[in-house]
């Protein structure tokens, strides 16, 4: 496992993170770097979500959907046979993989779909990398009778073909994006172009805690239920708070969701795990915190993988969901203040952890979530048998079967069983 990323000038962990002084800013990060055409839509969205979050009609309806559609609260599962490989520390998983559509993404999407209806818009667009956010958006659109278009990089449509089929079966139009690296960032570019053109009747259901204000804050709020539930559940299970909360970080929505409720708990380490790809030294990775260079992409100031001129660099990960050159601005702020730590796991470490959870516990995790598991193995060894680690299992691995089967040599290049 790779060493923890260097962090600069960390304040003492006891220090609480101060509230951002400016709306939409997390320290120096966040903001709203967008074409003027979108500003009215962002203002409308911000107003709508603030009203909605205080309106029992909205909050009750969302709670009802969580209960009767998503399957919340998601359970905690303790995984002792896996934990035996993690220095014997206790490891518990927050099972967001058991949500309807198979990941945490549905929490945010149902809320944004309700907002779309409240704003009087009839169409949702979304971008997707691994497909989980696209599937969740297609699902919510079907549930609420909205039109739905999902942008997905061509490379990702190929490695996540099954999820493309799921979206289409749910009635969504899936548009493969050929531009640039043909992955998640290019899908976001295309979704933003669509939004600029159709903003009158279309809501852009952004899938993670990036983008212009209010998205980072709003998406975090819609996911904070993960941490609220998990905190109560772990107290009930273990009688104490965990030593660490671990989550994978692409854009960072599942991590912000589980971290947020624990931020005031000074004794709880918050650990985000990025995609180390082939290894940070190879340049083929998505470990944004490793270089920690601020920049603007897709409407927000955050850490960004970029060349010396400011052009976005291509990223690499075995997991399409983490293959993104920037990261949610609140994560950049949590890193700078020292409240959260960021590590990375290489593709190889991830696949080993993936297989280990399958074989020891009968749970097939998403490759994104397997990054958190890989970090947990090391962290458990550091903490020893007294340690208690809460891991956000953000998604299930069905969508990654093709990648895994190829990686472990269970299928040949044509996809036939060996």
């Amino acid at each position, binding site marked *: 496992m790779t060493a923890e990323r260097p962090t600069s000038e960390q304040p003492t962990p006891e220090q609480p993170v101060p509230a951002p002084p400016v709306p939409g800013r997390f320290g120096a990060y966040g903001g*709203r770097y967008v074409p*003027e*055409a979108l500003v*009215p839509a962002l203002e409308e969205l911000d107003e709508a979500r603030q009203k909605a979050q205080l309106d029992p009609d909205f909050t009750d309806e969302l709670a009802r959907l969580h209960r009767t559609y998503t399957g919340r609260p998601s359970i905690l599962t303790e995984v002792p046979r896996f934990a035996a490989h993690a220095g014997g520390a206790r490891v518990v998983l927050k099972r967001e993989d058991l949500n309807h559509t198979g990941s945490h993404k549905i929490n945010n999407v149902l809320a944004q779909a309700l907002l779309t209806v409240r704003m009087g818009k009839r169409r949702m667009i979304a971008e997707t990398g691994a497909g989980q956010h696209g599937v969740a958006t297609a699902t919510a659109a079907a549930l609420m009778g909205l039109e739905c278009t999902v942008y997905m990089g061509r490379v990702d449509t190929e490695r996540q073909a099954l999820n493309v089929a799921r979206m289409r079966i749910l009635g969504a139009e899936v548009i493969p994006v050929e531009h640039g690296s043909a992955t998640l960032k290019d899908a976001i570019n295309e979704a933003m*172009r669509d939004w600029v*053109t159709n903003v009158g009747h279309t809501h852009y259901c952004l899938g993670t805690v990036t983008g212009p204000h209010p998205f980072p804050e709003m998406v975090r709020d819609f996911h904070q239920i993960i941490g609220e539930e998990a905190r109560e559940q772990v107290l009930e299970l273990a009688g104490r708070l965990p030593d660490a909360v671990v989550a994978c970080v692409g854009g960072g929505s599942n991590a912000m969701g589980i971290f947020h409720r624990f931020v005031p708990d000074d004794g709880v380490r918050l650990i985000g795990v990025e995609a180390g790809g082939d290894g940070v030294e190879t340049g083929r990775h998505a470990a944004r915190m490793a270089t920690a260079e601020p920049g*603007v992409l897709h*409407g927000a100031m955050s850490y960004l993988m*970029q060349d*010396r001129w400011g052009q976005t660099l291509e990223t690499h990960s075995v997991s399409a969901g983490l293959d993104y050159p920037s990261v949610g601005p609140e994560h950049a702020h949590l890193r700078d203040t020292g409240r959260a730590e960021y590590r990375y796991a290489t593709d190889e470490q991830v696949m080993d952890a993936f297989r280990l959870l399958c074989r020891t516990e009968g749970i097939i995790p998403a490759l994104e979530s397997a990054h958190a598991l890989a970090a947990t193995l090391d962290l458990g060894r550091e903490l020893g048998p007294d340690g208690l680690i809460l891991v956000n299992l953000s998604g299930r691995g069905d969508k990654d079967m093709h990648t895994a089967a190829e990686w472990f040599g269970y299928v040949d290049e044509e996809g036939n069983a060996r």
Partner: protein
Amino acid sequence: MSATTATGTGPVLAACREEGRAALVAYLPVGYPDVPTSLRAMAVLGENGADIVEVGMPYSDPVMDGPVIQRAATEALAKGVTVDDVFAAVAAASEGGATPVVMTYWNLVLRRGVARYAADLAAAGGAGMITPDLVPEEAGEWIAASDEHGLDRVFLVAPSSTPERLATVTAASRGFVYATAVMGVTGARGAVGAEAPALVERVRAVTDLPVGVGLGVSDRAQAAQVAGFADAVIVGSALVAQLLDREPEEGLAALGALTRELAAGVREGR
């Protein structure tokens, strides 16, 4: 109306007004089809009647651009165009007789350093900068640097802009205001957006700054139409398209011909 300034695009816009016509603002990306040809193309624009040249810097994630400009930008980047080339292009456009402004996505400016970028732009003879993904609220550093160097800062307004937004954006602008005629990305369209005249009128209600209208203009007739209600007619994709899939000399000739047509168009508008 005396909003034009003695620096930046002020003198050229004032001169066009004296002539009783709109200005022609012509966009091209640096580095397409290659850097040397693009520098010649920048000069061709002014030599054939463009008043202002918009020097576009290719960017990896151009969210405001349609397929034509995006394709040219992608190919230019693949061939290795860099931000340094922008300043050479600014000088080339100026040598062609037009007033150059840079159009760039914000991260490329941030990365160089806003103050350094502004100093380099001014030194190259640039009149200012158009920033498609920067709104005044995030532009503190740029406002300070443009003040220091006497550079225009051209922010965008759109049909979706509320009266409050129009007031905020125009108050922060200097030189001219860039009105996007349609909701959408760059690209030649069959018809100029029906919302454009109303938008220009709404802008004029809150500022004396000249108003340029862009997005969708591709020929002489459309240029004349827009010149009827705007102070500047902005053309991009249609010009870029002249260079696509052509040998450099042939492309430059086609570019010059279209520029002359558009220059004639802006003289027919009133």
